[in-house]
């Protein structure tokens, strides 16, 4: 087996598998940058997956399906925002509840939708011209959906927004020191609501990708833990949208290689590989001088009450 086929399949699969992770992670980065941990990603993704499938199957438009997936993710996130920002509930508990609620609700609504192939799926693209480039063409410009490219552009735009605009400063200051932000006239509650809901929109699209493109069918629990990988990737990416690209695709590549390399290495070890790297990164982030700790939003997980410190 020559090396080009290895490189091509690894990169191509890394992109395809990394898409839902990238979208979910970009959303979670925004929520956490504003100081709100949302462990409900798994729930928002599965609701998005179900909604995208149901709408696409009924109407025949994957685009509309993905739009509705974003909406349902956004609504679920709105509930989380209401609980954690307005009612100041414990963010971790509320997020866990959202995950369980989403899994349960999607399973209930999904009764009767299982075992049906999707009539019209989100098409895989072959980019004209670019796909003919040797190696690079099949690697990057074939067998991907439009969500791969939108996701990449979105990551860059979100990085610019976060680090190069006044809005980004507002979001980050709410996550770092909400009292000061409040004193400067930033509406802490509004910023947190917007960021959490935005995170839900992206998680919904990530889930929708699974059911209308990646594996076009609905089955209960089909996200199978991706939402939790997103939580880990958010830390892995050090709350930076550009690093989320590498994180998501690195994880995608590891995931693909864990099956590709089975012919040479013990499958039990390979199965551990992605999680092993996640643990390594989390451990590295625990050391005081590591960049990660400096970059974690200081007010992450802390409800803001005006006048309290």
């Amino acid at each position, binding site marked *: *087996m020559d090396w080009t*086929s*290895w490189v091509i*399949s690894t990169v191509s*699969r890394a992109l395809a*598998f990394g898409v839902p992770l990238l979208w979910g992670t970009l959303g979670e980065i925004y929520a956490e940058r504003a100081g709100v941990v949302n462990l409900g990603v798994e729930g928002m993704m599965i609701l998005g997956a179900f909604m995208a499938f149901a709408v696409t199957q009924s109407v025949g438009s994957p685009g509309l399906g993905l739009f509705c997936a974003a909406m349902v993710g956004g609504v679920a996130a709105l509930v989380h925002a209401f609980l954690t920002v307005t009612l100041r509930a414990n963010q971790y508990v509320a997020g866990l509840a959202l995950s369980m609620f989403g899994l349960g609700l999607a*399973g209930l609504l*999904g*009764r009767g939708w*299982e*075992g*049906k*192939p999707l009539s019209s799926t989100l098409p*895989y693209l072959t980019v004209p011209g670019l796909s003919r480039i040797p190696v690079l063409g099949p690697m990057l410009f074939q067998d991907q959906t439009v969500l791969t490219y939108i996701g990449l552009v979105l990551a860059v735009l979100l990085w610019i927004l976060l680090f190069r605009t006044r809005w980004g400063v507002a979001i980050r200051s709410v996550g770092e020191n909400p009292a000061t932000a409040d004193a400067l006239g930033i509406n802490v509650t509004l910023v947190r609501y917007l960021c959490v809901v935005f995170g839900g929109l992206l998680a919904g699209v990530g889930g929708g990708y*699974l059911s209308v493109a*990646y*594996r*076009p*069918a609905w*089955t*209960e*629990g*089909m996200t*199978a833990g*991706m939402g939790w990988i997103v939580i880990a990737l958010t830390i892995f990416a050090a709350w930076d949208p550009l690093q989320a690209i590498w994180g998501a695709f690195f994880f995608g590549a590891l*995931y*693909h290689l*864990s*099956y*590709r390399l*089975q*012919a040479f290495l*013990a*499958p*039990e070890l390979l*199965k551990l590989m992605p999680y092993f790297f996640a643990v390594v990164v989390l451990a590295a982030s625990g050391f005081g001088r590591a960049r990660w700790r400096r970059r974690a939003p200081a007010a992450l997980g802390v409800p803001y009450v005006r006048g309290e410190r």
Partner: protein
Amino acid sequence: MKRVLVAVLAVAVLGSLALAATKIKAGFIYVGPIGDYGWTHAHDVARRIVDEKYDWLETVYVESVPEGEVETYIDLLVRQGCNVIFTTSFGFMDGTLAAAQRYPDVIFAHCSGFKRWDNMATYMADFYQVYYLNGLMAGALTKTGKIGYVAAFPIPELKRHISAFTIGVREVNPKAEVHVRWIYEWYNPAAAKEATEALIAEGCDVFAFTEDSPTVVQVAAEKRLPSFGHYSPMYDFAPDYVVSGQIVHWDKIYEDFLLKIYKGVYTTKNLAHVDYWWLLAQGAVEVGAKPGMLINPKYEAALKNYVINHPTFGKISVYDLVYIRLNQMADPGITFDPFQGPVYDRKGNLRVPEGMWMSYDALITMEWAAAGIVGPWPGEP
């Protein structure tokens, strides 16, 4: 003396009348959600069939029960008045046995295990014969000589299936290889997808699998490659690419078992040796892309044109061979078994001597890999 006899007779008659008039309430305990479109889904389809069929039967179920908590749910079902309880996961075995000892008046049946009691039977519908038949077809359809197999866990059940499949492949295509990838999960569509993609990258062009989702069929179809469905009928997922597959009919077992309870054949005293191990001959499993469609018509020509020189049957098409082998295994007087000696493992050891068949015990504890299997094989002897 006479009076005693009359009394005994009266009790017996009244007792059987009372039993005939009694309704059976059967509770089903599932390990997964009924929407998995795999194992639990198939059991629930069967439950609905028997519930419709017998007016003296009422059924209830609980789904997604963690394996360690089966006893709690058995308590719940007994309190709800269930007098027959089915537990449908290997991991429920010890919990079911303990409950059977605590509730001697309730009948239990445990799926896929090996522990029984006076009031606890076991049952299983096994696919190894069907995998063998699919292997015959796969061997005829591969052009690269590499067939991909996505497998859940390296346990005897799957090793038996993969080996039976590979024996079928090699019978018609002695040089073909079956490449195996393990995903270590019963249900994980993303893992199944990436495993399939990895096999495609290795050059495999026909696919079979043992895990609980239609993913492999869908991924293969995207690349225009044929595959074999598993567990539920998967024809509709890729009508042009599903050649055949394994289909289960748990209802056949449930029907038989419940009817025998209703008629008083099975009681809470005589189940210690009741073990259903149902195969093609009993109709508990079927080979086909969907019920009634043994071979997808789109692949009939290819299989008819693939003619081999068979040691037993001489010049024969694979299409005809499939039907002959099916009849040999489906007729009540079974005259063929996939693991009919001589069978060698991939290390060259003779596993089944000439003229011998494997015993039931050897089948359910099987660890070796048939010749032709490529890839890791944890626990290989």
